């Protein structure tokens, strides 16, 4: 494995290797010393062009538990805002000898550019790019489901909310299908992308019809500013039609878990009583995020220095 740019890069074997590796990493958390020497002497750069404290500290914790040196690089202005260009930032990191660059960027495809432009030779991990993908989020979501439900073959997963603008939804739709799950995207028609019929997933505009048949319900963050974009009339109407509240939660099968990638807008897509309920695995997702990111960094950096583009980890 050289880069992790898209959940589509992972074959089923590779995805399962990440999950089983993550399980080993997670067992570390129960030990008194939570640190492995695996990446001693390697340098991981967290290159964040967009604020995301939770993802950044998750990667930071993951790299540190593997004994890597971590540099946090918060690039204040991207070239979108006429700051330093992505290329110049990349050349700077290359000159500092980064082994892996974990990049978060507001522009879709920025990590792909970084990996394929020839500017850097390090491994590139996509930590969320624009409205494109967030593959480690999908991996930690799959890992969380896997721990609760076992194999995902034939499991029904509903992703509910702003699919159009969601990198989490794109990565999950890809990865969960790779792992054998049946994905249903639930959203108002304005928040489903054009061409979603080619994604191989089910779509529905009716949350109430989907809930009684699903094994996992993942609520996606809905930004209030989408309202001014005319995607839905009011926050209240959105919540009424697509929010997960106690009444709707009661229609779920007993074993169904409730997930959210965070940060939540309580009262918008999910009510506080649901978020804090026994079904909610939202906090566990955060814990699992560190283990999964440890697995990804470990698989990217601990192997031989292969230059091939493939993911034959």
């Amino acid at each position, binding site marked *: 494995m050289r880069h992790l740019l898209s959940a589509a890069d992972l074959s089923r074997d590779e995805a399962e290797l990440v999950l089983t590796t993550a399980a080993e990493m997670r067992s570390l958390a129960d030990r008194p010393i939570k640190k492995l020497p695996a990446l001693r002497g390697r340098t991981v750069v967290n290159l964040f062009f967009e604020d995301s404290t939770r993802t950044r500290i998750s990667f930071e914790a993951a790299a540190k538990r593997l004994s890597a040196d971590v540099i946090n690089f918060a690039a204040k202005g*991207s*070239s*979108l805002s006429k700051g330093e*260009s*992505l*290329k110049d930032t990349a050349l700077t990191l290359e000159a500092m000898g980064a082994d892996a660059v974990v990049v978060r*960027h*507001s*522009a*879709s*495809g*920025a990590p*792909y*550019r970084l990996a*394929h*432009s020839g500017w850097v030779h390090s491994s590139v991990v996509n930590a969320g*790019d*624009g*409205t*494109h*993908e967030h593959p480690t989020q999908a991996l930690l979501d799959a890992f969380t489901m896997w721990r609760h439900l076992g194999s995902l073959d034939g499991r029904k997963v509903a992703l509910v909310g702003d699919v159009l603008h969601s*990198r989490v939804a*794109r990565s999950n739709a890809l990865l969960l299908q790779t792992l054998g799950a049946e994905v249903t995207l639930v959203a108002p028609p304005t928040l489903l*992308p*054009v*061409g*979603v019929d*080619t*994604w191989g997933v089910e779509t529905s505009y009716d949350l109430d019809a989907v809930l009684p048949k699903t094994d996992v319900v993942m609520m996606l963050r809905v930004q209030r500013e989408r309202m001014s974009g005319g995607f839905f009339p009011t926050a209240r109407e959105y919540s009424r039609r697509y929010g997960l509240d106690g009444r709707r939660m009661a229609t779920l099968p007993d074993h169904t878990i409730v997930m959210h990638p965070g940060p939540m807008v309580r009262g918008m897509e999910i009510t506080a009583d649901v978020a804090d309920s026994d079904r909610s695995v939202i906090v566990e997702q955060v814990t699992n995020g560190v283990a999964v990111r440890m697995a990804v960094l470990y698989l990217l950096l601990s192997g031989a220095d292969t230059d091939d583009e493939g993911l034959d980890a």
Partner: protein
Amino acid sequence: MTTYLIQNAAILGGAPTDLLLRDGVVAEIGDGLSADGAEVVDGSGLVALPGLVDLHTHLREPGREDAETVLTGTQAAAMGGFTAVHAMANTEPVADTAGVVEQVWRLGREGGYCDVHPVGAVTVGLGGQQLAELGAMADSAARVRVFSDDGHCVDDAVLMRRALEYVKAFDGVVAQHAQEPRLTEGAQMNEGELSGRLGLTGWPAVAEEAIIARDCLLAAHVGSRLHVCHVSTAGSVEIVRDAKRKGVDVTAEACPHHLLLTDELATTYDPIYKVNPPLRSREDVEALRAGLADGTIDVVATDHAPHPHEDKDCEWAAAAFGMLGLETALSIVQETMVDPGLLDWAGVAERMSATPARIGRLAGQGRPIAVGEPANVVLYDPSVRRTVEPGESASLSRNTPYAGMELPGRVVATFLRGRATVLDGKLT
């Protein structure tokens, strides 16, 4: 002035014959010509076409001389077989006054590589609020006849109506950049399956088609002439076809890149493929070719859009829209239209010389290759294949999407009123 004797060239791909270019005109055509002191050009295997005319070129001067100048842009034009280009108005300052259009026109004359006909802005500063002094530009030394806010759509229906009406006074034409602005806010690529997958904001076909349909209705209503820039979708072709059938005085252009490339290239996230309107689907490409073949699309125009390296060497969303086009246009028309049998060389001359000259109301351009006509001639070798090397471009910029691609054909010589601007495939 040098007299040129071109031997054994195939005019519009016909039987080989000789041409004598003397004193700026085609002096003689026939077999076995001779002329004392004439420089002989071997035309064996070459097609002779009338000098090409581009209705849509960005020369960037004044204002962005780091991307292109009138001189380098016209040199690239000559290398591509063009003897006249229309320089778009989105310069800095905008070509919205007689002063600016005369400056651009004069720079073209001083360079001498290709006639430069400035396009005047429709609205002051391309702002879409108030008509620019169209009459002053029409009456200036540049004799502007084509007006466009290209890069921006004249989306206000009243303003568009007034512009269409107003230019009738001097036989002008409004060339519309058809893009409904609200439907394309933040748009990055063709809206479709790929934009959804790549997470790039979509530029839907309907945003182009809605404006073209409206403008055709407006042009019919006020009895004016309309030209549609860079038609890119199958639906647009259908609307223009229908409007023509109903007798609307509308002409349309297609760009070489829209005849060849598709939105699939956006999967590379390499903004060398970022252009406005965006690369579309395979079905759109096929519809454009068919429309160009049947005359629904009247002309091929390059939309040559030079950009400095740093504006393309970045992430997609941060990059500028546009690609080079002058030096590869004829090759792409051969590849997409001539070689598949959709258009013969006479058709190419029609779409790339005669018709654009007529739309731009250019005297002395787009004329047939005939005795007594201005000696604007291209010699083109359709038999060779070449790999596009950006570094070899005469343009100041390097943003060609065809780098490394093998394309057919090569311009061997270009004559502008009897003077060679390109000989042996090199600028003179």
